[in-house]
C-alpha cells in the first residue's frame, strides 16, 4: 500500500490530498498540519476584515473533520513537522514522533516576513497572512480605538490592508523602501498613475523609506522610524514587506532548497518520492526558463493537484508559471504580466491611456512585460495571448481574441503591438 504524507494543509496540501485520493482509493494518506482548523485561503483574511465575507468563507474546502471523512485521510492536527530525512523519507515531529513514507509532499506555504527589529512586537504592530492576522485586525478596527494607520510595504498585501483601513474610514499612510509602489512589477509610469489615484482617495504616500525600528510614544501611539530618520506615527502599523517560504525545517534533509524548495515539472524535488507544491516551492517559470517562487492561489491548487497525482503513481506535469500579479483594491485593478526587470532601454515601448484604461507594454524580440490598469474583464484574454507568445513567438493571434479586444475598447495599435507581424 502506498503511504503518503502531506506536510502543511493549505490549498496545495488539500488539492494534493484530493488528487491522490482520486487516483488511488487505497493509499494511506497522512496529513500533518500545524493548525487545528481546515485549510484556508490567506488572501481572504483582508476580505474578512472588510466584512465582504464571513469567517467560515475563508475555509473554501470545509472543516478538517469534513475533509478527513470526505477524502478518507488521517489528519494530525497541531502537529508541525520539525525535520525530514530525505534518504529514508522519514518525518520528525517535535515530540519525538517519527514516521516513514513512500511519498512525501512539502506544502508548507509561506510566512509573512517581519524583520527582527526593535519594537516589532509592540501592541498595534501587525502582519497579514494568517486567519488569525485577519481576526486580530478586525478586532482592532472594530474596537474604534484606531484613528490612524500606517502600512509599511506598498505591494499586494499592503494595499489590501490599506483598503481595510479606508473602508473603516481610518486615515492612512502607505510607505515603501522602493521608489514606487509595486516596484517589482510596475513600470515607473504605471506607478505614477497608481500613486495619483491612491492620493485622490485620501491615502498619503511616501517612498524611499526603509524601516529601521518602531518606538512607543507617551500618548500610546507608535512610531515607525526610517533609516533616513523620517518618523511616521499612527495607532496601528502593518508590516507587509514580503513573504518567506516555510522551508527552514528542511535544513539537513538533503532536499535542495533555494528561496523555496526546487521542483521539476512533476513537482518532484531532487530526491525521489519527495515533492513540493505551492508557496513553499520554486517551479519553472516560462519566460526565463528558470525556477521561481511565485505565490498564487491558482498555482498552489494546480501544483498540489499535479503533485498528488504523481504521488499516487500517475504522470502529470505542471504547465509552468508566468510572473503574474493582479492587485484588486478600492474598485481598482492593476495587472502585471511578465518580468519588468528584464526590460532594457533599447526595447520597444507601447503606451496607451484613455479614461478607462492605462496600458504599458515592452517587447524586445518577444513580449517582455505588460502593465494594465482598469482592464479587469479582459485580463485573461490578454494574459493567455502573452503566455502563448512566451511559449512560441510565432503563435497565431486568434480571431476570437482580436474581436474581444476590439469589442472591449482596446485600440488596434495595442492588438498590433502584442500580435506583431501576425495579422
Amino acid at each position, binding site marked *: 500500500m502506498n503511504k503518503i504524507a502531506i506536510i502543511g494543509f493549505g490549498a496545495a496540501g488539500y488539492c494534493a490530498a484530493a488528487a491522490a485520493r482520486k487516483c488511488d482509493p487505497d493509499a494511506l494518506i497522512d496529513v500533518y498540519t500545524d493548525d487545528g482548523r481546515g485549510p484556508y485561503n490567506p488572501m*481572504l483574511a483582508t476580505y474578512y476584515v472588510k466584512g465582504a465575507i464571513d469567517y467560515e468563507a475563508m475555509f473554501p474546502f470545509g472543516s478538517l473533520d469534513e475533509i478527513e471523512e470526505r477524502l478518507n485521510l488521517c489528519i494530525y492536527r497541531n502537529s508541525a513537522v520539525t525535520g525530514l530525512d530525505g534518504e529514508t523519507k522519514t518525518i520528525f515531529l517535535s515530540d519525538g514522533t517519527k514516521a516513514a513514507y513512500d511519498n512525501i509532499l512539502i506544502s508548507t506555504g509561506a510566512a509573512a516576513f517581519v524583520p527582527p527589529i526593535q519594537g516589532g512586537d509592540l501592541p498595534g504592530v501587525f502582519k497579514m497572512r494568517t486567519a488569525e492576522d485577519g481576526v486580530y485586525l478586525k478586532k482592532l478596527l472594530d474596537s474604534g480605538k484606531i484613528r490612524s494607520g500606517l502600512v509599511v510595504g506598498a505591494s499586494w498585501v499592503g494595499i489590501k490592508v490599506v483598503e481595510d483601513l479606508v473602508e473603516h474610514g481610518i486615515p492612512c499612510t502607505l510607505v515603501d523602501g522602493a521608489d514606487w509602489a509595486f516596484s517589482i512589477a510596475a513600470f515607473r509610469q504605471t506607478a505614477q498613475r497608481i500613486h495619483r489615484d491612491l492620493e485622490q482617495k485620501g491615502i498619503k504616500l511616501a517612498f524611499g523609506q526603509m524601516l529601521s525600528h518602531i518606538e512607543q510614544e507617551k500618548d500610546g501611539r507608535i512610531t515607525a522610524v526610517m533609516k533616513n530618520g523620517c518618523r511616521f506615527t499612527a495607532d496601528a502599523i502593518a508590516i507587509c514587506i514580503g513573504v518567506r517560504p516555510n522551508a527552514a525545517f528542511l535544513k539537513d534533509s538533503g532536499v535542495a532548497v533555494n528561496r523555496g524548495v526546487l521542483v521539476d515539472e512533476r513537482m518532484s524535488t531532487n530526491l525521489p518520492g519527495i515533492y513540493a507544491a505551492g508557496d513553499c516551492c520554486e517551479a519553472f517559470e516560462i519566460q526565463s526558463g528558470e525556477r521561481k517562487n511565485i505565490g498564487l492561489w491558482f498555482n498552489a491548487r494546480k501544483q498540489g493537484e499535479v503533485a498528488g497525482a504523481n504521488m499516487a503513481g500517475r504522470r502529470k506535469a505542471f504547465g509552468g508559471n508566468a510572473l503574474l500579479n493582479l492587485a484588486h483594491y478600492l474598485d481598482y485593478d492593476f495587472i502585471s504580466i511578465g518580468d519588468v526587470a528584464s526590460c532594457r532601454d533599447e526595447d520597444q515601448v507601447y503606451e496607451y491611456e484613455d479614461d478607462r484604461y492605462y496600458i504599458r507594454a515592452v517587447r524586445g524580440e518577444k513580449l517582455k512585460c505588460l502593465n494594465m490598469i482598469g482592464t479587469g*474583464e479582459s485580463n485573461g484574454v490578454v494574459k493567455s495571448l502573452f503566455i502563448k507568445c512566451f511559449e512560441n513567438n510565432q503563435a497565431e493571434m486568434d480571431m476570437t481574441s*482580436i474581436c474581444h479586444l476590439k469589442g472591449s475598447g482596446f485600440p488596434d495599435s495595442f492588438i498590433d503591438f502584442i500580435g506583431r507581424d501576425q495579422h
Partner: protein
Amino acid sequence: MKHVFTFDPDRCCACSSCMIACTDQNDIDLKAGEKCFRKTYDTEVAFKEGGIYCAYLSTACMHCEDAPCIAACPVGCISKDSDTGFTIYDNTNCIGCKSCAMACPFGAPRYNGADGKMVKCDGCYIRVKHGMKPACVRACSFGALDCIMEEEYRNSGSDKACNVLIDQANLRKKEALRRWR
C-alpha cells in the same frame, strides 16, 4: 448527460438574437449597467498583407473541460454541474476579485456594477436539465449555435464545439488570407 455547445461561424451573421434571448432569460438589466453573458461580434479585421476579414461571432462561456476559472476562484464560487458538464457558479461569497477573469482565456466572466459580484453564462443548465435548449440556442434562426449531447456530438464527426472555436476562426482566417494572396 454531458452537453456541448457548438458554433458554426459560417452560419452566424451576428444578428444578436441570441444576446436578446440571453438578456431576457437571465433578467439582465442593461439599463442598470449589467452586461449580457453572451456577446456577438461583427468585426472587420484588417490584415497587414492587405485585405479585410469580416468576423461574425457569438461567444459566451465555453464551458471548458478543464476550466481554469474553477481553481482560480479563491472562495470556490465556480464548479462543474455534474449532469450537464457546464461551468456553473454560486456568487454568494464572491468578493469581486476578478481572479476568474484573469484565468479565463475568453473573457467570459462579467461583473455587476452594483455589488461587483461575478456573473456569467451557466449554459442555462436548469433549462437543459429539463430537456430544453439554452435560450440563446433556441433564438438562433440560422443554426449557428447549438447545444447537443456529447455522444451525439462525437458521432456527428463535427469539429465545431465551442472549445475548438478558436482553431476554427484561425483556420478560416488562414483560408481567407490564401484567397487574397
